[in-house]
């Protein structure tokens, strides 16, 4: 399979690999996917007091496109507000990385990971509203 240059670049030089303290109140963690499906993404965000995502980290088990999608997702969420980050669509990732149709699920997973991290963060801020956090 031929990979786009951008996928190769993210695979070879992944941005923001690592972990943040998942117990911290200002950190949101999203883990999506399943090992038996061949991809699991963990995406974490750290949000400043004024609501801006100041740091993001990821770890991904998956193919090169999955790694690239999550690496790109961390780049994109940084500097955005929580609401702005919710606006990131998987189709933007597909376009940026020139993913072929068979790899679109990687971008969907990355979008899910962003949403899961944001949801986790919000539920930590408003523990009483957990049930309707979206």
């Amino acid at each position, binding site marked *: *399979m031929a*990979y786009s240059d951008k996928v190769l670049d993210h*695979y070879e030089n*992944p941005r923001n*690999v690592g*972990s943040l303290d998942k117990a911290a109140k200002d950190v949101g963690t999203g*883990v*999506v*996917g*399943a*090992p*038996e*499906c*061949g*991809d*699991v*993404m*963990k995406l974490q965000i750290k949000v400043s007091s004024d609501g801006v995502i100041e740091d993001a980290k*990821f*770890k*991904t*088990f*998956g*193919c*090169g496109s*999955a*790694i690239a999608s999550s690496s790109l997702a961390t780049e994109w969420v940084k500097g955005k507000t929580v609401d702005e980050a919710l606006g990131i669509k998987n189709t933007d990732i597909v376009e940026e990385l020139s993913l072929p149709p*068979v790899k679109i*699920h990687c971008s*969907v*997973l990355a979008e*899910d990971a962003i949403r899961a991290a944001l949801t986790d963060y919000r539920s930590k801020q408003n523990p009483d509203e957990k049930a309707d956090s979206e």
Partner: protein
Amino acid sequence: MTSAPSTNNKHIYLDYNATTPLDPRVLDAMMPYLRENFGNAASRSHSFGWAAEEAVKIARQQVADLLGASDKEIIFTSGATESDNLAIKGAVEMLAKKGKHIITCVTEHKAVLDSCKYLETNGLADVTWLEVGKNGLVTPEQVAEAIRDDTVLITIMMANNEIGSIHPIKEIGAIAHEKGIWFHTDATQGIAKLPFDVNDLNVDMASMSAHKIYGPKGVGALYVRRRKPRVRLSPQMHGGGHERGMRSGTLNVPGIVGLGAACKIAKDDFDKDQAHYKALRDRLEQKIRGALDHVELNGDDEQRLVTTFNISFAYVEGESLIMGIPEIAVSSGSACTSASLEPSYVLRALGVGDDLAHSSIRFSVGRFTTEAEVDAAADTVIKTVRKLRDMSPLYEMAQEGIDLSSVNWDAH
């Protein structure tokens, strides 16, 4: 060692179970039959035909010698897939009045599985699909228990292409002979890597391919026993009645000459090749297993081809690993590397979880593999696995002591 075929490719080839390069000695044997000796082996009226006929005769004997067979028992085909089709469909059709039950196993090559499925789907055979153990093997007892009054054919491969597990075909063949049932083995991966003798192994039909043993692609053979029992097959390719009427079609003379030469070299160099394969495979295996934790060998540790090493690197996905080792040619059981998007059916049959199947790599060494290549490959693989584990959430969880099977994953 024979010098490797010249190539402009700087990549390290460790996928010899998929195909092998042509041995330069094989190409030398073939060249005259691609040039001046272009005759049709069936032309009886001139020297062009006689030269071709003579070359085919020599090649047939060379193939027979490697298999411990008589030259009259060798049918040339286009490769092991055709040999498997001819053996299975040809036998079942020939024995239709006697019965229609076949015994095979779930980890066979697709050429066997799909031939059996074709017969089953069309009501021409009942098929018992034997499961394999965790080591990838069927037992002779499983085969004996599956036999019915109307069983006409048992087909069990000699060694598995993906994991290299070696089935007890001698014992299975003995059971078949005791019951008067024909026994076919797809010996494509076993021949030239294991001692092979049709009489010692109680084999009635054996499929083989030239390109797995340093011969050309597009040619193979089927061994068909002539005595005790006399096996006759219904042809699947009709025409001029070549190959004792079992396989029509003008003989692929250069290909057949190449197959013969490859068989002769395999026989002459058997001990040398074995020692070479084993030394390199073991070196690769020891380096990788010595450097990395959480690795699982797929298949049987002992009953395994000396060329083959199939391993799962837990917490690393196979396609991403292959992407990180672009200069090393290997294959993976990962779904992402196949067209089907399903992980390897062979690994699944062993009970390897889908997660580990996704993380599997098959290394297979060969005649032209060097120690330097093995060392370079091992170093690159180890480095890449470590890098990918550093970015694997699963490895992190495992290091934290989380049991991954207890996690409620969000499957999609």
